[in-house]
């Protein structure tokens, strides 16, 4: 399963509104550029949310009582990036943009 997103500043701003943060790296492109990034950074937890959505489809009702989600962010996602988040049959998660892998992890049902 996979989900494709064309990242935009509007998506970052929308997530920031519900997230309630004021971390300038998400909103100030000049500052992000001065810190060596290609642009502002999408929230890692936003990218995690895409993976969680795939897991909810995969596991159905069990997800809400036995779900386990692990994500590790290893590279940024910036406006303009073509992001693909995938959930493999074995539960491994990967987030990828044209520049490479941005997030890894897993979504599984916990052992009872």
């Amino acid at each position, binding site marked *: 399963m996979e989900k494709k997103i064309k990242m935009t500043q509007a998506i970052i701003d929308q997530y920031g*509104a519900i997230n309630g943060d004021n*971390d300038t790296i998400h909103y100030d492109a000049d500052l992000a550029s001065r810190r060596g990034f290609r642009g502002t950074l999408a929230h890692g*937890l936003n990218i995690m*949310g895409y993976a969680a959505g795939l897991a*909810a489809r995969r596991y159905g009702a069990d997800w809400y009582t036995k779900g*386990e989600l692990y994500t590790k962010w290893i590279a940024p996602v910036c406006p303009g990036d073509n992001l693909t988040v995938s959930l493999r049959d074995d539960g491994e998660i990967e987030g990828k943009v044209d520049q490479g892998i941005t997030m890894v992890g897993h979504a599984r049902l916990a052992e009872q």
Partner: protein
Amino acid sequence: MTRPSEVKPREGDQPGTPYSAFQEGAILPEMRFSITPEINDEYLAAIDEQDAECYVLDGRKVCAPNVLSVYLLAVLYRRYPPIQGIVVYDQLWRWHNPIFADETTEIVAKGKVTEKFERRGRKWLRFAAEFERADGKPIASAQHTLNLPE
């Protein structure tokens, strides 16, 4: 309804916490907030899940369990206000019981700083949090690792 911004200290709103001030083993005080259908809808829209039909359990609508993720850092930041430049590294969630999407749910969160360490010249912090209904029923457990600036 509790918006995350109502309970989460924001970067720059008050003096932030230098790395030296974090204490391994520190208890993160109880935080109460409410998840409403409106908050869940706004969160679903933010992660492009607004049209998803999978959020159902036994015929009843449930919230995306990861809606709690927008509250997680508040558990830490209420004791240790943030500075600019904190980078999320990883996060582990386990869901135990659903949050239903057709009612308001009062949530109680609490946590603990579990590790503070330096590796490869960088400074790290890990904390854990538990989320329960107000009646004590467990909802979710989380662990979060952050890379903190100097």
